[in-house]
């Protein structure tokens, strides 16, 4: 896990959350903009998973590797689930769910940094 990449993911997912919040406030269903923003977040998370596994393989990382790997993989599901929900719920609440998903990604990344640095177990 690198701090630069983590910071980028947090910023991008917060921007994606803000974008979808605007969509929801304008009373629109999920549009291409929301989907593209989610896609960018997902690509960044995949990069992070690859980097994370490479670093874990190179004997870096926390003592409690299992928790970290759990986060690394679970966070990949969140944008995909958000997009699926946005497709199902064709109202302002579709992007509403995407806001929740993107905030969850940002929170999980912060948590992963703490686990990586060993400040929490």
């Amino acid at each position: 896990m690198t701090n630069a990449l983590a910071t980028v993911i947090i910023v991008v997912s917060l921007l994606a959350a803000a974008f979808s919040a605007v969509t929801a406030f304008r009373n629109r269903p999920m549009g291409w903009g929301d989907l593209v923003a989610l896609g960018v977040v997902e690509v960044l998370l995949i990069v992070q998973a690859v980097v994370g596994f490479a670093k874990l393989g190179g004997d870096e990382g926390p003592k409690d590797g299992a928790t970290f790997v759990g986060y690394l993989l679970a966070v990949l599901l969140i944008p995909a689930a958000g997009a699926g929900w946005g497709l199902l719920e064709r109202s302002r609440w579709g992007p509403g769910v995407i806001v929740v998903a993107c905030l969850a990604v940002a929170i999980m990344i912060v948590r992963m940094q703490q686990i990586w640095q060993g400040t929490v177990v």
Partner: protein
Amino acid sequence: MSEQSSSSPPTPSAPPDGRAARTGSGPGRMLVAVYAIFALAAGARAGVQIATRFDEAPVAYALSALAAVVYVLATVALAMDGRTSRRVAVAACSVELAGVLVVGTLSLADPAAFPDATVWSAFGRGYGFVPLVLPVVGLYWLWHVSRRDRRAA
């Protein structure tokens, strides 16, 4: 979608958006999404805790597992909707509220009894107090939807 209303008489006081009141649609989707994330987080945490170090704090880890089960129940019940599901959802949210209040109070009053944190410790402080707010929002939403149903009936 609107086929179901063709056989029944029109309901004059249906919600303005033309949908039937459902716990798992509209704003309810956001609620289900938050519940799903908590089910995932609490479940994963309990799984790791119990698998790797159950002996250190069996009470805390059993509580983590219980919390996870309650979140999963609430998520599924809110998403499915229906008479039984709503009862299950009300029960799950109530257990959750009781759990976060009791465990939150005990964990502050007697920290020695809780050597490791659960979702409900210190009223869910480790999770931004969302565990404390979530059951209240859930119960309010269930009450709101059933009231809308009664008006429409």
